[in-house]
């Protein structure tokens, strides 16, 4: 395939390196340094895709991030990449891309039928129809609309690329490497400031790469490359290309996405595809330049209609002609630069200037070059379907209201220039209240909210001389304040052409009887008539207009359409633009890959995992793990082909009959020291703590201030002023913060230190009638008799050379001990317990068996203490001190909390003693009552009682105290279950608690 539109020389591409690539299955050639867009244009390809609503042919409109059309589907590194802008994608060997939003192909697209029916699809048409018959919206119309929408196709395969993050700090962050960015960066760097200079494109220099200016005695391009190479060599400067600063957040934090590998055929193994930089900058310089505005005329979306600056960029950077018979349609001098560039390369352009006459330097130059210039001329409509073939042009009256006879001129592209819109997005995101600048018909930044300064054309300054002067000065001033150094450099002299005033005209009137579509938002197919319709219907706020018509809501976020939309609204409403105001600019400035935002916290590492020192023993012994917060705990240990139910029953039964051991390392542990510790505990817990003897433990419940149970656990008095508190696994972190809150803010007079010691200790609960035998053998020197180590007693011991702490506490309701050793010894302890316990038939048990054991004992846990229950609900009345005050006490006298029929925890047994009651079932009186069926309460926890070999559940039900003995129903409609049940005491096994004291 030959490149018919590539010039023989010129451009910044590497002509020594040819690159082959495929578009829509067809092979093409380009050069290193091309974008996919420039390479396609070089090959004469202008039809890239179809528009959103009408499926009209779409080509290229820009040359960068503002591109509204050229969205393709890529295949890179054996992976699918949807929605890639061809204007941003650099060419690499073997690149494969195809068109989107068209079927069967971009040349012949069935969806284009919409275009012929377009009169039935004005803005918001769907709000007015598709309402009959009722079910048809969801069943018929919507599926069709859904199918037609969307661009690329996502693969459901996992993304194999690496995305990394980096947090960086600097004195000055400068966004954009055009003249203002380079000058300010250079000045600041000279003062020793730490500077980050970010450039979205692959090449540095911005407008200097394509403008005909002289700085010092160099061309703009040479000067920019000299400055960049100097900056790169300075240790205090980070210079990044392919890096878009897309968000300006609070406290001067900005976020930048760096495309590290997107321009390469594949990513190196350990190199990220993209890196997201979180940058905290002391000062920010926004030098993001400006974007050319389109002129609006009939069928101005036809492929071949292109921004004049883009046409110039394709010529000067890529050596590519967007057409060979160009029409330049402009309301200002910029169009002439493009025209002259064509002319220099042997192509004769026609310039249509909307102005009556103008005689600036550049127009003179164009005249001298014999360029055909038609003043007071406009394009009425582009002709051609998949590519511009000609244009209807005409003379326009001075007041721009009347057009004269239509002439048709042959052309293959129309380069439009409607003057320039400053890129103020970042300033606006930072909170800057923007202001409208009449001279340029656009908004520029005004009062800074954060530490931000906007320079150059982003600030509405379009002469290079002023840009460089202010930028050198600002760069110097801002950095001087930070570094206290000044190494001022003199501003080079500039030679540039003086421009004449632009024409405020931007939208060509329709000729009589013609109804050409004049597009504002090219991707979303929003036309002038759509906006007018919205306004006629009363959608008059700019936000209403945007939402009703979808103006500016496409993937380009209105970079080329918003301001023209505003013009139209203000014309129609007879207001001036600043009164209409613009819609809010929000990050991101341009779309950012979600993979990059997330970074490396994916897959198994999407959240950290906590493991006990015995974790690897559990793993080796067939433990099946369960998440407890971010901890992993053994749920059960699988023997052979056992399932969860069988294994947990075996484990629980073994605890009841022999002895079991459970890893309780995950329980929160808080080391409490200080002279006021007892007083503090007395305030924190609902029960009394002042008289707990040294060497004894006590069970405690703590509340939130609203009276709801926060957590429970045992606390042991290790010595006079030293306590060891345990919390539930789930609440450990919250409890520590809660304690610190009261110690630091509420009762600073208390001298108490709290510190988490969860990780210091590995814990094993040894439970079951034979646990004392195991303990005796583990600690031969210790008196483990009921007298020597009574229930709720605490001793220290020596476990085969390792210091151990032994607490006689029980969650299972059996005779039980918790042994703690320092974590490095955890595995050693565990293996010793297993070894010693062998003769007593010891088995490890997991959380499922633990649940069974606690449920049949009626011990409340997380499923009852669910953030909605008070102590009374959980039959913890005995633990609520009447005598002293404590956190949350004052809330317990609320009407609902002291109501005689207040809910309470009870036991539930199925009448048939066979049918398990699913957790989450509800207790009702009448299983057949009509809905809504009044509920008495819910089943909070269920188990298979190993003691009685039948199902048993806990439930929290209304008037629970008086319900015992009643025969009711447990209902789980989700599982189609209605189970006749009897309400019993929640203490199903050993109601007097004799075993723990045995």
């Amino acid at each position: 395939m030959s490149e018919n539109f590539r010039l023989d020389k010129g451009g910044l591409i590497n002509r020594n390196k040819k690159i082959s690539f495929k578009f829509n299955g067809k092979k093409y050639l380009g050069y290193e340094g091309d974008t996919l867009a420039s390479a396609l244009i070089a090959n004469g390809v202008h039809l890239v895709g179809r528009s959103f609503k009408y499926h009209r042919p779409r080509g290229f409109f820009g040359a960068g991030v503002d591109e509204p059309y050229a969205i393709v589907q890529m295949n890179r590194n054996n992976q699918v990449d949807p929605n890639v802008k061809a204007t941003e994608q650099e060419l690499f060997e073997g690149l494969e891309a195809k068109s989107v939003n068209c079927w069967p192909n971009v040349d012949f697209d069935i969806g284009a039928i919409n275009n012929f029916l377009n009169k039935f699809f004005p803005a918001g048409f769907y709000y007015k129809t598709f309402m009959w018959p009722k079910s048809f919206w969801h069943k018929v119309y919507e599926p069709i609309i859904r199918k037609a929408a969307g661009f690329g196709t996502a693969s459901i395969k996992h993304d194999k690329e690496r995305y990394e993050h980096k947090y960086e700090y600097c004195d000055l962050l400068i966004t954009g490497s055009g003249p203002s960015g380079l000058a300010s960066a250079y000045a600041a760097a000279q003062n020793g400031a730490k500077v980050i200079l970010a450039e979205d494109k692959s090449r540095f220099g911005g407008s200097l790469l394509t403008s005909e200016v002289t700085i010092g005695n160099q061309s703009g391009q040479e000067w920019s490359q000299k400055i960049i190479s100097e900056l790169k060599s300075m240790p205090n400067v980070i210079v990044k290309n392919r890096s878009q600063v897309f968000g300006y957040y609070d406290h001067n934090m900005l976020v930048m996405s760096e495309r590290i590998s997107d321009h390469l055929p594949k990513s190196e193994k350990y190199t990220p595809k993209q890196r997201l930089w979180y940058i905290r900058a002391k000062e920010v310089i926004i030098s993001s330049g400006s974007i050319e505005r389109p002129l609006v005329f009939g069928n101005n979306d036809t492929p071949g209609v292109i921004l004049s600056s883009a046409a110039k960029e394709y010529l000067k950077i890529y050596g590519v002609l967007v057409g060979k018979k160009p029409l330049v349609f402009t309301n200002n001098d910029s169009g002439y630069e493009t025209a002259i560039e064509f002319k220099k390369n042997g192509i004769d352009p026609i310039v249509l200037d909307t102005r009556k006459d103008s005689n600036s330097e550049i127009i003179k130059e164009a005249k001298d070059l014999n360029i055909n210039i038609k003043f007071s001329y406009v394009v009425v409509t582009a002709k051609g379907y998949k590519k511009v073939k000609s244009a209807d042009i005409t003379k326009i009256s001075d007041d721009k209201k009347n057009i004269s006879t239509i002439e048709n001129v042959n052309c293959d592209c129309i380069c439009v220039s409607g003057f320039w819109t400053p890129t103020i997005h970042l300033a606006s995101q930072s909170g800057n209240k923007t202001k409208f600048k009449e001279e340029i018909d656009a908004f520029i930044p005004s009062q800074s909210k954060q530490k931000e300064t906007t320079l150059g054309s982003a600030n509405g300054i379009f002469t290079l001389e002023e840009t460089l002067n202010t930028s050198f000065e600002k760069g110097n001033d801002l950095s001087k304040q930070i570094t206290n150094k000044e190494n001022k450099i003199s501003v080079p002299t500039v030679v540039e052409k003086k421009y004449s005033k632009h024409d405020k005209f931007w939208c060509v009137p329709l000729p009589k009887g013609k109804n050409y579509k004049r597009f504002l938002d090219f991707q979303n197919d929003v036309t002038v008539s759509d906006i007018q319709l919205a306004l006629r219907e009363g959608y008059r706020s700019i936000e209403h207009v945007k939402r009703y018509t979808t103006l500016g809501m496409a993937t380009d976020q209105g970079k080329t359409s918003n301001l023209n939309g505003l013009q139209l609204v203000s014309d129609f409403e007879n207001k001036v633009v600043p009164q209409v105001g613009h819609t809010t600019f929000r990050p991101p400035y341009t779309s950012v890959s979600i993979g990059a935002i997330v970074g490396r916290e994916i897959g198994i590492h999407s959240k950290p995992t906590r493991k006990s020192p015995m974790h690897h023993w559990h793993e080796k012994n067939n433990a099946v793990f369960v998440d407890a917060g971010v901890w992993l705990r053994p749920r059960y240990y699988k023997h052979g082909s056992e399932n969860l139910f069988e294994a947990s029953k075996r484990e629980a039964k073994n605890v009841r009959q022999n002895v079991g051991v459970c890893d309780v390392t995950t329980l929160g542990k808080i080391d409490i020291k200080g002279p006021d510790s007892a007083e503090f505990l007395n305030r924190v817990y609902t029960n009394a703590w002042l008289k707990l003897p040294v060497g004894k433990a006590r069970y405690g419940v703590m509340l939130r201030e609203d009276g709801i149970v926060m957590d429970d656990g045992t606390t042991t008095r290790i010595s006079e002023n030293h306590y060891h508190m345990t919390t539930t696994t789930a609440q450990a972190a919250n409890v520590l913060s809660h304690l610190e809150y009261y110690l630091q803010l509420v009762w600073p007079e208390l001298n108490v230190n709290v510190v988490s010691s969860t990780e210091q200790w590995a814990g094993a609960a040894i439970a079951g009638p034979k646990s004392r035998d195991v303990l005796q053998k583990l600690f031969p020197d210790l008196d483990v008799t009921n007298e020597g180590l009574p229930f709720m007693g605490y001793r220290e011991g020596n476990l085969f050379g390792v210091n151990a702490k032994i607490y006689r506490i029980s969650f299972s309701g059996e005779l039980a001990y918790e042994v703690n050793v320092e974590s490095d010894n955890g595995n050693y302890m565990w293996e010793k317990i297993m070894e010693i316990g062998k003769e007593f038939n010891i088995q490890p048990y997991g959380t499922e068996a633990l649940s069974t054991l606690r449920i049949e004992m009626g011990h409340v846990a997380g499923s009852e203490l669910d953030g909605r229950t008070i102590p009374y609900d959980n039959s913890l009345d005995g633990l609520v001190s009447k005598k002293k005050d404590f956190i949350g006490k004052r809330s317990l006298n609320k009407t609902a909390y002291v109501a005689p029929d207040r809910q309470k925890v009870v036991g539930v047994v199925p009448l048939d003693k066979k049918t398990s009651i699913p957790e989450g079932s509800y207790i009702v009186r009448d299983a057949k009552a009509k809905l809504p069926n009044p509920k008495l309460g819910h089943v909070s926890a269920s188990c298979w009682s190993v003691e009685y070999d039948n199902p048993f559940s806990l439930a929290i039900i209304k008037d629970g105290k008086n319900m015992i003995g009643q025969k009711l129903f447990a209902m789980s409609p989700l599982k189609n279950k209605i189970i006749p049940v009897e309400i019993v005491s929640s203490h199903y096994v050993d109601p007097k608690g004799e075993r723990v004291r045995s």
Partner: protein
Amino acid sequence: MTLISALNHIHKKGLFGNHENKNEENLLKVSEIKNLLIVQIVQYKSSTISFENIDIDSLKLKNEPLSVVNNNDTRILWNGPKNWLLVSAKKNLLKSISENFKETDFAVTDLSHSRAIIEIEGQDVKEVLKKGCPFNFDILEKNNSINSTYNGIAFTVDMIDNNPDKVRLFALRSFGESLYHSIADACLEYGYKSL
């Protein structure tokens, strides 16, 4: 052997990541540090004792953010107001600390087993840290320490040396393997040698 350290199961020796065609000496070095004494010392709010006069392994406490007072064996990290974390190779120091810091004025808590410790050394150490922690590491100098978080895991950074950079990272022991994974993963781009 009874002791099993926090990272025993995950820390494997070898060369990893982008190490090919690079001088092994210039690679990052990653190791697990074990068997240190770690003690939290906190002075109670009402205590009037002047902690500056108390000697620990010839070191004096300093109530100043970032500060690490140190000698060859022992480093005392500022952990908060009148709150320090003493880290020492001298395991027997605990006894003298408990004696010198009376329990009426100080809470002394042995946390030796509560941390997993990773040491990394090399030119790119700060780059590795910047991947997961928003702290401004440009200001962290030799004998500075901070508490912060790395990819959501609370950790302590103790900067031991700066030519090349050498830091010790402490995480709660149960998070050790997750932090190790995160740090090792962040090192892959530069290549690292696991010692």
